[in-house]
């Protein structure tokens, strides 16, 4: 592990067991997150972005998921081999912002209850007995409430005291997402994992939320893993971006460079698929995402690639550095 890397994922291979057979969802995924940077993970639906994040968070249900190979280091410790208790401790240094603000908050608890409970749970070192005891103590509740107010204040919610008593249905999408960000910040995490936090929001609100996230991340020197399918959002917020296709990382580069000059044929197809304001013609990528039961043996993109040659079919290309800080998994580049 290199200096300053918070997360290192090496060669992660995950299979999902289903009634119909084994889905080979991830195949040799590499990912690094350095201190203080936001890393983007982009790709289309079903390419394994969320699975990667869930493995990192330790919330992947196993079974059906099976980790065949690979290491997931978080601060130098392999999360996959830790005991349950140790993993639980590590987990609390990762904050998670879920995808859909509409359904991610429990509708029967108000914002205050959720935040206060969360804070007390943290304060009792995740011990259930201490938690139950502290929950009843009035003093603890007051401390936690003050903490909750501070958190809401941090995410720029106007009049946080009024929000504490509100239920999720009473809040707009942008507000809910703010509450979720506040929740992710509860344990002073070192890493924030955001799984498409703005897809359900309107563009103007999306912009506000992104600015808020960026502010929080730079303010407390967090690192972030930002999952999205929107390349424009990635450009706004991510320092480096990993492009995933069908369970493999196909390209890694500094975001701007990646989008202005994509190298891998898939990335190029993806960038060209988006209608641009500059009016450049857009074109799709022919074909469909491969079947995960029986993915292509060589490059997983090969059946849809317009630059393929015989070699692509036989062997999986590895991520190779083609320029400074720029990695591509394609036979075209070495």
């Amino acid at each position, binding site marked *: 592990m290199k200096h300053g890397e918070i997360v290192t994922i090496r060669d992660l291979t995950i299979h999902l067991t289903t009634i119909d057979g084994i889905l080979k969802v991830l195949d040799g995924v590499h990912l690094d997150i350095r201190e203080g940077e936001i890393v983007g993970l982009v790709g289309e639906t079903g390419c394994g972005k969320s699975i990667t994040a869930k493995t990192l968070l330790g919330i992947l249900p196993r079974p059906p998921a099976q980790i065949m190979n690979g290491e997931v280091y978080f601060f130098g410790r392999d999360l996959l081999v830790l005991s349950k208790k140790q993993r639980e401790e590590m987990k609390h240094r990762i904050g998670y912002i879920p995808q859909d603000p509409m359904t991610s908050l429990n509708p029967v608890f108000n914002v205050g209850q959720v935040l206060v409970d969360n804070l007390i749970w943290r304060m009792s070192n995740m011990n259930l007995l201490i938690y139950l005891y502290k929950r009843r103590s009035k003093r603890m509740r007051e401390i936690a409430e003050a903490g909750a107010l501070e958190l809401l204040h941090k995410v720029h919610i106007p009049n946080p005291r009024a929000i504490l008593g509100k239920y999720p249905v009473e809040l707009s999408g942008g*507000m809910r997402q703010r509450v979720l960000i506040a929740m992710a910040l509860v344990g002073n995490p070192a890493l924030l994992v955001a799984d498409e936090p703005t897809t359900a929001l*309107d563009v103007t609100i999306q*912009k506000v939320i992104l600015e808020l996230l960026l502010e929080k991340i730079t303010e407390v020197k967090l690192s972030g893993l930002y999952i999205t399918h929107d390349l424009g959002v990635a450009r706004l917020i991510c320092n480096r971006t990993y492009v995933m296709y069908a369970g493999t990382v196909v390209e890694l580069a500094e975001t701007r460079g990646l989008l202005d000059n994509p190298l891998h044929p898939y990335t190029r197809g993806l960038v060209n698929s*988006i209608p*641009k*304001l500059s009016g450049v013609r857009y074109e*799709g990528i022919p074909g469909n995402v491969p079947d995960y039961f029986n993915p292509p043996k060589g490059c997983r993109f090969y059946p849809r690639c317009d630059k393929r040659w015989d070699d692509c079919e036989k062997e999986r290309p590895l991520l190779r550095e083609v320029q400074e800080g720029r990695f591509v998994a394609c036979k075209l580049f070495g």
Partner: protein
Amino acid sequence: MSQIVLKAVDICKYFHRKHGTLFRKETVVKAVERVNIEVRQGQVVAIIGESGCGKTTLGCTLARIYSPTSGEIWFDGEEISKSQKSDLKRIRRKIQMVFQDPGSSLNPRHKIESIISLPLRIHLDLSKREMKERVMELFDIVDLPRDMMVRYPSALSGGEKQRAGIARALALNPKIVILDEPTSALDVSVQAKVLRLLRELQQNLQLTYILITHNLSLAKNLADEVSVMYLGRVVEMAETEAIFRNPLHPYTKALLSAIPVITQKEKQILPAEVTLDGDIPSPENPPKTCPFLSRCQERRMVCEKSPCPDLVEVEESHYVRCLI
């Protein structure tokens, strides 16, 4: 200039909501408020705006799925806002709609063939063979493999479902197709293919589209004319080029600057950064003043005092609803 096919004059659509059991109270949601729209033959008119601004309601009203609370809709020289059953049936052959979510707009219990042939069965009296031929033809038009005919919607991917939805809308050779967020549920690489199909169809079949979307880049690429809606009202209306080159209403500016762009080249096209604070006011109780007032960055004293401004023609065929 080509002929106007669809014209809406001052249409409003209000929804009445009753609540309370003992003390019945009624609130009115003003989803669409005095909208004027003109669509010319062969044109693509885009309606853009955030969620909840009434763009889908407007689309449904134009297709006469809803009947407007007031106002007139002229289609082909005929007033259709108050048409009843048999007239409506005739009109609907000419105005078709493609819905937002391809997954839920196809009946999961019917085969694709029967879904696409349903409008034919309702409106035309065809023999089985003619029907089959027409469906096959439609499959070719939207580029779906013919063996999909016997499948159920669940066996199709998102892009294929949307193609089926388009085929269904085209079954009766409509004049106008209302596209309600045709690609928002699709992945980008699929999106591009569906868009290309829509564009080709428009050119080959001389179709007229009303495109409802929140994606401005899409509007820029497909539309000739753009109307920006905010809280049930059209706040700016102009040709696409004009709106992107010179957005005048503060809301349009904010909307444009909020688009996450991909390349540096696009960034230069956009107006300077404007960030909006606050939320959209509820359409149940819209402010009497300019609806955008609470979030506007350029508001002045006048705005707070005067009632909602009217659409004014600022430049040639560029209308803005703003006091400034």
